[in-house]
């Protein structure tokens, strides 16, 4: 997915799945908490849809709050996820 497509996917999840009342404020720079008024349960639902509907594989590590600050930073995070990591070996 391109970054544009990721942004569109985020928009669609928030609009149709989470039915966010504050969609008028949706923008790349919109902060999830302060501008879109998303709470922790909604973030949980967002992660769920990204995994189940769009096939993103969210890592099972601690999430960095900075990645979940704005729509744009989340899109960057998801974009990075798609790129296969070759530099580090996997210990699984």
């Amino acid at each position, binding site marked *: 997915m391109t970054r544009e497509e990721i942004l569109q996917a985020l928009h669609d999840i928030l609009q149709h799945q*989470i*039915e966010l009342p504050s969609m008028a404020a949706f923008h790349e720079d919109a902060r999830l*908490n302060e501008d879109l*008024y998303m709470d*922790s349960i909604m973030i949980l*639902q967002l992660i769920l849809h990204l995994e189940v509907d769009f096939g993103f594989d*969210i890592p099972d590590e601690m999430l960095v709050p900075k990645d979940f600050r704005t729509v744009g930073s989340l899109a960057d995070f998801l974009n990075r996820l798609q790129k296969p990591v070759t530099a580090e070996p996997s210990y699984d």
Partner: protein
Amino acid sequence: MFFVNEHYYTLDDLEQQYTEFENTPHLRDCGNRRLAVCMPDVFQWLALCLFVRRKGGSIVPIHPSVPKEGAIRMASSAGSHILLYGNTHTPIELSEQKNAREGVLVQMSSGTTGAPKCIERSWDSIELELESYVSVLPADHQTTSIVACPVTHSYGLICGVFASLRRGAEPVILSNMNPKYVLKKIKEYPKHILYGAPALLHTLTLLIRDGGRFDCVMTSGTLMPSGWLESLKSVSNRVLQQYGCSEAGCVAIHPDVSDPREMGYPLPHVKVEAGSREYPGEIIIRDSEKTIFTKDLGYMEDGVLTFLARMDDTINVAGLNVYPQEVEDVLMAEPRIAEAVVYKKIHPLSGERVCAQYVCTQPIEEQELREWCREYLAPYQIPMEFIRTEEIKKLPNGKISRKRLGEGVLA
């Protein structure tokens, strides 16, 4: 002793922390004092809680997401002498007044008028609850409690952490709410009992793969939709549910839930009364010290307590209580707001949400209102929907019906 995420803390770490507290004057002399604590560091918070309990002092836990002004407000209304906000070194002095009693855990709960009131529970009564709780919980010292809910709330603190320590097990406390991280931890501890609220449990159910399974899962705080319970049961060895209130702690456990409304069998240290299936009544709890009227509606049948609904206006946001009066007080303190009423609406996916109507003397941007609320309230307390209105509708008797205002579904 216990884990916080990846970090293992030993008894030595705890003792060391105690020594540090002993060298801090406002902590050393905390017996007969009341400390409000709002701290992001889970280990420090738990150590402090155990330290104050040992000293015979009182503690007022405040969820770490609450902003400073809001924490000061909550701490003051709970009669706290000091507030530790963010760290243990810079106490905020609040009051020198003596409270009627100390040696208690203080939690905020709704009063009959909707104004929040402070529930005080003695450490002795918590001990009694723990003994009773552990005696019926089908888990031994080899079962790991995985606590994926706030440990400032009695569910996570008492039942998740304290009960686990009491049965000689080492709890794993998760403060990172990445559902994939919770699943990873589940795998690491095949024999576990997972403490969570329904929304998290449901998300985990949908994400668990590769034949992964939960061992025991505990749900509490709000009713789980039956569809969610069914799918959770299909990936769990056992789903338990517990019921209680701030005044009494946990009072009933269901060891194997099939109907989400069934709260289970009363614990041995309490007597629980409710109506019958035909005539449901208020759930009333009696322990050795007091009688508690829960304002919950339910019934008892074959020794099993069933919960039907809340009798009042408390808004249950994913297990965290929001008291309309408290939010209204904050709104009304904004100079341009003449009148405000806070009520709940049901969101189809997320359960109950906080909504507000207000009358103002000069126009206010919604963003400004949110900024205002953010100074005093935790994110979960801030209304999702603000409606400006010319007048707040009253009932013929002049009273506001929060129930009527909130009818319908949050769009």
